[in-house]
């Protein structure tokens, strides 16, 4: 059952929130020992919340558009009283005293938060192999990664535990795992969804977004979580967009450009699926052409200066003084050093060091400053492309899901997994991935649709068209 159908059924009384919750918990219990999508299952909290929803329905109230729908939450979003670890030893067991704004909005919409999902530590990674608590397995082939960093959330939906999940996307961390797990994933326009309560990795790039089986479910969830939040100064001062009501209006007359720079270095079978998706849009009345975003070829390089730089600052607070892991030392300097040495994994340390170096005196302008100037070029090249095209198209990831250990020997090989997704984080504009067929290995392929800032209604229309045409 989709989230849309489930919420309707709960409100109509043909099922209950409690039953939906028990079904989700049973599915998790049956299979998550193998998959490890969850760091923490909130059985008691979920049952209590579900019973409260059912009581309200019995009294004739409407608990909201997601009434009774179980949802999984990436473990880098604060949940009051419930462990929030970022899959790191340095926050193991930490219970925030507050809920992220996204969590408050989910509660207000009647959704049931069923648990916190696994991720690459502090959202740094593309396979969920960087989790300090063990990897998550791709439910479609457990010898393979689910992608990352939101691998747990992608797997929770792909495994059928829950119809909806929430992830965060800084360089592709929603879209790439969605593609590798065969589900829909969305990175909204920067500023559309509040980051208050999202544990920061790279503040100018991070965005929260939905995972779902269907475009309509993703639209519903995005409408619930989007919209201005006074607690986030980067939150756009506008209400949530209307997407669901315009989903089925089709793509007739829309101009769609295939971003040439993002078709380089892609596996042949993945590229073939993307061209078939382009053909499907043409068949549905869109005008498809070739677009160019020349500076996109510098996306990875700019990102791997900007993101680590911002991360080095955002992760300074994990110092053993007030919360989380503390390893004592003879003095504070040693305490700081051994706490962070023990608490952070290798990839986190690598990025903190890279970022600190890029921001250091004498290098700040040559590295961080230069990367930000390149970012402006990427933004301008996208703007030029959007003068000719309403939407842009590309593969979401260069390959299908890869095997555990296939890319861990060389960090740069892993970083290449995000070559198609990173430009959209640098530019800020929205991007959606839709499953579209499989590779030669039978594993899912995702196709990415991008649009100008705040064009979610148009992007989702194209996503819905591709969903209907998918093989």
């Amino acid at each position, binding site marked *: 059952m989709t989230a849309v159908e489930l919420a309707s059924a709960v409100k109509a009384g043909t099922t209950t929130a409690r039953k939906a919750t028990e079904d989700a918990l049973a599915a998790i219990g049956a299979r998550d020992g193998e998959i490890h999508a969850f760091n923490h299952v909130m059985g008691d909290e979920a049952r209590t919340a579900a019973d409260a929803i059912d009581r309200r329905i019995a009294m004739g109230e409407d608990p909201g558009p997601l009434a009774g729908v179980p949802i999984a939450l990436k473990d880098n979003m604060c949940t009051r009283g419930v462990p929030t670890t970022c899959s790191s030893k340095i926050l193991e067991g930490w219970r925030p005293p507050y809920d*992220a704004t996204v969590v408050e909005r989910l509660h207000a919409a009647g959704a049931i938060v069923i648990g916190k999902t696994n991720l690459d530590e502090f959202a740094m990674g593309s396979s969920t192999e960087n989790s300090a608590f063990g990897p998550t397995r791709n439910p479609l082939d457990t010898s393979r990664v689910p992608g990352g960093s939101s691998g747990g959330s992608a797997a929770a939906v792909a495994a059928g535990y829950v119809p909806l999940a929430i992830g965060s996307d800084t360089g592709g961390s929603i879209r790439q795992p969605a593609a590798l797990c065969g589900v829909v994933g969305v990175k909204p326009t920067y500023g559309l969804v509040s980051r208050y309560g999202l544990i920061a990795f790279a503040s100018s790039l991070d965005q929260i977004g939905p995972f779902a089986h269907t475009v309509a479910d993703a639209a519903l969830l995005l409408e619930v979580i989007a919209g201005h939040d006074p607690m986030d100064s980067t939150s756009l001062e506008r209400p949530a967009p209307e997407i669901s009501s315009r989903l089925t209006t089709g793509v007739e007359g829309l101009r769609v450009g295939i971003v040439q720079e993002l078709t380089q270095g892609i596996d042949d079978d993945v590229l073939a699926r993307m061209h078939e998706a382009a053909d499907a849009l043409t068949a549905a009345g869109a005008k498809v052409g070739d677009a160019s975003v020349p500076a996109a070829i510098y996306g990875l390089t700019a990102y791997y200066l900007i993101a680590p730089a911002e991360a080095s600052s955002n992760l300074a607070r994990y110092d053993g003084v007030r919360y989380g892991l503390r390893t004592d030392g003879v003095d504070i300097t040693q305490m700081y050093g051994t706490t962070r040495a023990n608490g952070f994994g290798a990839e986190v340390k690598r990025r903190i060091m890279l970022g600190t170096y890029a921001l250091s005196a004498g290098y700040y302008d040559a590295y961080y400053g230069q990367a930000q100037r390149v970012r402006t070029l990427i933004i301008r090249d996208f703007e030029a492309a959007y003068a000719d095209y309403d939407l842009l198209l590309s593969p979401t990831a260069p390959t299908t899901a890869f095997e555990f250990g296939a890319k861990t020997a060389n960090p740069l090989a892993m970083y290449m997994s995000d070559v198609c997704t990173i430009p959209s984080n640098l530019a800020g504009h929205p991007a959606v991935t839709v499953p579209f067929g499989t590779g030669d290995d039978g594993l899912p392929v995702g196709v990415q649709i991008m649009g100008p800032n705040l064009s979610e209604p148009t992007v989702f229309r194209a996503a819905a068209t591709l969903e209907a045409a998918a093989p």
Partner: protein
Amino acid sequence: MTDILEGWEIVVGLEVHCELRTETKLFCGCRNAFGDEPNTNVCPVCLGLPGSLPVLNRQAVEYAMRIGEALHCEIRPSIFHRKNYFYPDMPKDYQVSQYDEPINVDGW
């Protein structure tokens, strides 16, 4: 002694810290009050908890502009920078302050 002093110009800089009389703190809604029980006028933002974000106090900006007027400054659009260092009294291990584009310049 006067031979030693010749050729040297005495320059004195004053770094003045001034607490602003605002109702709430600079980046959050906690009461800007002194003398209360410890750890009562606190929230995730001023504690620098993971996930927290600052929201600038409008009154503080207005006071800064008034100070700028009083000191004949050019008052400009300004930005905040992070001054990153580790110290146990600083929850985020960075200070949020102004650096190369401050609100008031060239005063006297």
